[in-house]
């Protein structure tokens, strides 16, 4: 190979080093470290596994095992916006299944998928703690309650690039 590293991979390396520095010395540092990487990059690149394993004196299998165990950790970049629709019981009692159908139709994707323009990744989630204002959803970390189909469309239109 011998080529200079691309800007992207340099940015990835830098993010990983920053995350390592931020979580250095913590007991049981793996989870905070993986979060610190994903907070910066939006996902945990495969190239991070060896570096993380080395830094924490773990096997690569250990690190891979943890990344794949937890629903939150992703190994490829998500869309520019992350839309999580609550599908747990309280939201079901207020029509979350119909809302999910509407969302899938409007975005043209199923759960766990990203729209072809890369704008939105749609995920199910099991409880956002807004159960007295069901159905709920979370968009880029922001909670929305009493979400009707119309409200969903409004929020999606408000994303600008979605």
């Amino acid at each position, binding site marked *: 190979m011998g080529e200079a590293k691309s800007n992207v991979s340099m940015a990835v390396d830098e993010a990983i080093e920053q995350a390592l520095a931020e979580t250095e010395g913590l007991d049981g540092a793996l989870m905070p470290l993986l979060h610190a990487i994903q907070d910066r990059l939006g996902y945990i690149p495969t190239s991070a596994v060896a570096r993380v394993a080395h830094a924490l004196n773990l096997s690569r299998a250990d690190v891979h095992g943890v990344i794949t*165990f937890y629903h939150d950790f992703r190994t490829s970049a998500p869309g520019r916006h992350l839309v999580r629709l609550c599908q747990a019981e309280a939201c079901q009692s207020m029509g979350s299944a119909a809302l999910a159908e509407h969302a899938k139709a409007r975005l043209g994707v199923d759960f766990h998928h990203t729209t072809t323009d890369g704008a939105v990744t749609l995920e199910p989630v099991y409880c956002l*703690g807004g159960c*007295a204002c069901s159905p709920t959803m979370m968009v880029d970390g922001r909670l929305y309650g009493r979400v009707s189909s119309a409200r969903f469309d409004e929020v999606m239109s408000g994303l600008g690039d979605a």
Partner: protein
Amino acid sequence: MSATVFVPRDSAALAVGADATANAIVQSAAARGEEIRLVRNGSRGLFWLEPLVEVATATGRIAYGPVTAADVPGLFDAGFLTGAKHALLRGPTEDIPYLKNQERLAFARVGVTDPLSLADYEAHGGWRGLHGALARGPAEIVDDVVRSGLRGRGGAAFPTGIKWRTVLQTEADQKYVVCNADEGDSGTFSDRMVMEGDPFLLIEGMTIAGLAVGATRGYVYLRSEYPDAERMFAAALRIAREAGYLGPNILGSGKPFDLELRRGAGAYICGEETALLESLEGKRGMVRYRPPVPAVKGLFGRPTVLNNLVTFASVPVILERGADFYRDYGMGRSRGTLPFQLAGNIQRGGLVEKAFGLTLRELLYDYGGGSATGRPIRAVQVGGPLGAYLPESQFDTPLDYEAFAAIGAMLGHGGVVAFDDTVDMAKMARFAMEFCAIESCGKCTPCRIGSTRGAEVIDRLVSGERREANVELLRDLCDTMVHGSLCALGGLTPSPVLSALNHFPEDFGMPAVPKARAA
């Protein structure tokens, strides 16, 4: 004189527009030359009134709600800064029956104070429990907690004081206090409300636990689905540390205690205590075999007090006002209060902290006002996704650990989710199995495989295939899961499944339960 206006910053209030309301209030006030002081409090837990705006007047706080940004100019026109009449006026906040009839011990300050104001916390009784604890020895603190009758509020209801005593009596070079704030049960939000609305309370409760058992370090394991709670609690930790409530020398007592906040990663199983410990240690959230219990061998193999957030939040009042004060609330062996959470298809959803003993019906109708859709409430799931579905004939059951156990149900973390008569209970039973399959850690076979097979059997049953044989198979499978699973996920998933099947067989294509028997 400037008026003080309260607009909650609880995430459920934000979810229905509290920020827009707050901005509109600030802008309208500026445009009209009115001087106001805006306080972003926690939520009172009256979520059908959110965004609930309060104004401090000479006669106490006056409530208006639900107030959208569009309502704000009208409120100013009406003179709401002095508590004037308006269509959204709800009167003095404390006199709203929903709130007035509650017995708020853990939630005494939530929604009242500015969550990050140490001055507010102290002015409203904060740190008194901690001062009480610092004046006592570890054994005395543990004794108070034992005598209070407090039981774990996460769902298992194990006596808190007994757990603390075990940790106190176990010798170790390092002990830990861990808070389970992985509030994954659908229909629950009390942990979130405390973290967002009164975070110093959790710090105080955990510090008392540390003093009681000789632990110097603590962790709060918070689910990732609560980003607002994470920000608030992180800020509270910094403030408490700077003020000397945490650190090497708490309040000059010479005793050290400090806390760290850790974020989960979307695994429901990490609400199970041993999976939570594994996760804190940086591993997959796999359930551990017990014994040893965490009180003997917990985090990093050390004795660990591991309690639910509401358990810790209930401790300061016990140390402040005494074990007897707390014990006087409740019934039977369920002492004190539980913050019930009314959710789902309910007209007045919210937080109701009451002594044990009121009935489910009182909670659903006197507080909740019936279903949100106006249709009859057909089924209620109490205690989260692993809790049983209760039919109307069981609504008079008192909310008490033993009374619920006697009908094969559980109170769990106090979540109550109502469904109207459009619910398909076979679908809910299938969902319980499906959820278990999604969230199983995979360590034991009954849970890992049983949940998937369970969903398949329910599908066959509903499609009418060999109905009797499949009912028998489902019951047999549930029996295996109950008795063969390592933890409550596999062990309790049959609870919603079988309660749905037993009380609502007609949804599975079988004859309905005769009315007489149902009653």
